C-alpha cells in the first residue's frame, strides 16, 4: 500500500483556528514515516486532540498543507474521504462507541463498513476482544461497560482492520498500568506490521515503556522538537505474548476497494 520509506503524513506550516478565537495550532510542520511509533505529548489544552483531528481527517486546517498517503489531504474530494478513513484506525478521547451496538458489533464495525464477509469477521473480532480482556463482555452495550472497558473496545475497534496509521487520543487514560502496558504492546506489534502509530498522552511513564518511539511535544499549540526525531533511550526486553494481529483479516481488507463504494 505504502512505499517502505515514503512518508505517510506530511504537515507543512499547518494552523488551526476554531471560529474566531486564537489559533489552537500554529506553524505545525512534521513528517511521519510508515511503521514508526510516535508519542504526542503536551499539557492539557496544548492542542493534542486538535492535531489528531487533523490527522484523522475530522477537521480541516485553517492554513498550511497536509499530505497523507501521498495525496493532498486538504483538497481531497469528499467522496475519497471514506477510502482514506478506512486506512486509519482511531481511538477517540471520548471513545465514540455506537451506543446501540454490543462490544462485539462495535469492534466489527470497521470490517463491516469495509465490506468484509460476515464469516471472516467473527473469529478476528473475538480474538481481539479476548486480547483486550473483554471476551466475557462481548455482548454488552457500551452503557453497561466501565470507562476502562469502553476504552478497550475503542482500541480493539481502532486496530481490528489493521490500519496503515493508528491515531490514539489518550488511549490508556482509563485503564490500570498493567492493561496500559498490554495495550502498548498491541500498538507496538501493529507498528511491526507496518502501521504508523501516533499516541497522544501526557503520561511520561507510558512513553518510557516504548523504546524506539519518537516524541513530538505540543506547547500552547506549537510543536517543539519539530523534527520529531527525539528518541527515548531505555531499552526493554521484547514483550512476551504476541497480540492476535496476525489473525486479523488483512488479506480480506486488501481485496477491498478503498475508494468510494458506489451504491
Amino acid at each position, binding site marked *: 500500500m505504502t512505499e517502505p520509506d515514503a512518508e505517510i503524513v506530511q504537515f507543512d506550516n499547518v494552523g488551526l483556528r476554531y471560529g474566531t478565537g486564537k489559533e489552537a495550532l500554529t506553524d505545525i510542520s512534521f513528517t511521519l514515516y510508515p511503521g514508526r511509533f510516535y508519542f504526542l505529548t503536551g499539557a492539557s489544552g496544548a492542542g493534542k486532540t486538535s492535531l489528531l483531528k487533523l490527522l*484523522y*481527517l*475530522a*477537521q*480541516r486546517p485553517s492554513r498550511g498543507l497536509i499530505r497523507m498517503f501521498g495525496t493532498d489531504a486538504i483538497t481531497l474530494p*469528499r*467522496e475519497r*474521504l*471514506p*477510502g*482514506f*478513513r*478506512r486506512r*486509519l484506525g*482511531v481511538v*477517540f478521547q471520548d471513545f*465514540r*462507541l*455506537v*451506543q*446501540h*451496538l*454490543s462490544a462485539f*458489533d462495535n469492534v*466489527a*464495525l*470497521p470490517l*463491516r*463498513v*469495509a*465490506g*468484509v*464477509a*460476515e464469516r471472516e*469477521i467473527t473469529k478476528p473480532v473475538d480474538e481481539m476482544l479476548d486480547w483486550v480482556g473483554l471476551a466475557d463482555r462481548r455482548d454488552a452495550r457500551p452503557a453497561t461497560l466501565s470507562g476502562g472497558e469502553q476504552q478497550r473496545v475503542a482500541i480493539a*475497534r481502532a486496530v481490528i482492520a489493521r490500519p496503515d496509521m493508528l491515531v490514539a487520543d489518550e488511549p490508556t487514560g482509563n485503564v490500570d498500568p498493567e492493561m496500559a502496558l498490554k495495550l502498548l504492546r498491541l500498538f507496538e506489534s501493529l507498528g511491526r506490521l507496518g502501521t504508523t502509530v501516533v499516541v497522544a498522552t501526557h503520561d511520561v511513564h507510558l512513553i518510557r515503556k516504548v523504546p524506539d518511539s519518537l516524541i513530538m511535544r505540543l506547547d500552547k499549540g506549537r510543536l517543539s522538537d519539530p523534527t520529531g526525531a527525539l528518541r527515548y533511550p531505555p531499552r526493554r526486553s521484547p514483550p512476551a505474548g504476541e497480540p492476535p494481529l496476525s489473525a486479523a483479516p488483512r488479506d480480506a481488507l486488501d481485496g477491498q476497494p478503498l475508494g*468510494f*463504494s*458506489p*451504491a
Partner: protein
Amino acid sequence: MNGTGLIGGSRRGEPGLLPDPRLGSPMPWVIAIVIALTVIAAASGLGLRNAAARASADLNGGVTVQIVTAAPTDRNHQADAALATLTRFPGVVEARRVAQDQLDTLLEPWLGTRPGDTIDDLPIPALIDVRLDTPATPERIGALLGAIARVAPAARVDGEAAWLTPVFHAIATLQWLAGGLIALLAMATIAAVVLAARNALAGHRETIEIVHMLGGTDAQIARVFQRTAAMEAAAGGIIGLFAGIVAIVALSRQFSALGSGMVGGAMLAWTDWVVIALIPAGGVGLAVLTARLTVLSALRRML
C-alpha cells in the same frame, strides 16, 4: 459491496450500522392515506378515460344526413347528389345511403306496417350515415351542410352524439383533476418522507458521524434509511391499496345502480386494475428515492 452484513437488520440476526431508524411511527399511516386516495383518484381517472374513449368514439362516428322532401324522385336525386358530394368531402371517412328496405324495417314498429307495402309516398326521409375522422363539432356539421345545401336543399345534418360534447369536455376536465390530485398526493408523500428522514437523521447523528469516521460512505448510510423507508411505505401502501379498493368497489356499485350507459363505459379494464395494484409500488419507489436524496444531501453537509 452487497451490503449483507453491513446493513442487514437485526431481524435477520445480523447487526446493522444503525438501529432501525424508524422514520417516525405516523409514516406508514400517512402513506396508507395517501395511497388510498391515490387509488381512488387513479380509479376515477381511468374510469373517466374509459368513458371518454367511449364518448369520443360516438362523437367521431356520428353524422346523419336526412333529405326531407315529399317527392320521392326529387328525394332520390337530392340524396344521390348529397352522397356524391359527401364522398368527396375532406374528413369524411365513410358515407353510406341507408337502403330503403332497412328504413322500412326500422320504421315498421312505429307505423304498424311496412311503409313500402302500403303508402309508397309517405314522406320518409332518405338517410345517409356519415363517419368523420374527427368529432362532429357544430363547426364541422355547419361545413358539411354548407357543402351539400347547393345540391340537396332539403338536407338536414345532425351530429349523432352532439349532445355528448359538453359531457366529453367535463370528463376531460375531471381527468385533469384526477391527475392533479395524484400529483398533489405524490408531493404530500415526498414532504412526509423528507420530514421523517430529516427527523431520523437528527436522531442518529452521532452514530452517523462515527460510521463516517470509520470510513462508511454516504451511500452505505443512506441505504439504511432507504430500507426503512421502503418497509414503512410498503406497509402503508398495502393498507392504503386495500382501503382504496374497498372504496372504489363500493362507489362503482352505487354508480352501476344508476344504470346509465355512460357508467357502463366507465368500467375498469383488467389493465386498469393492474395499474391500480402497482400504485403502492410507486409509493415505495417514491419514498425510497426521497429518503435517499434527503439523506445524501444532509450527509453532504457533514465532513
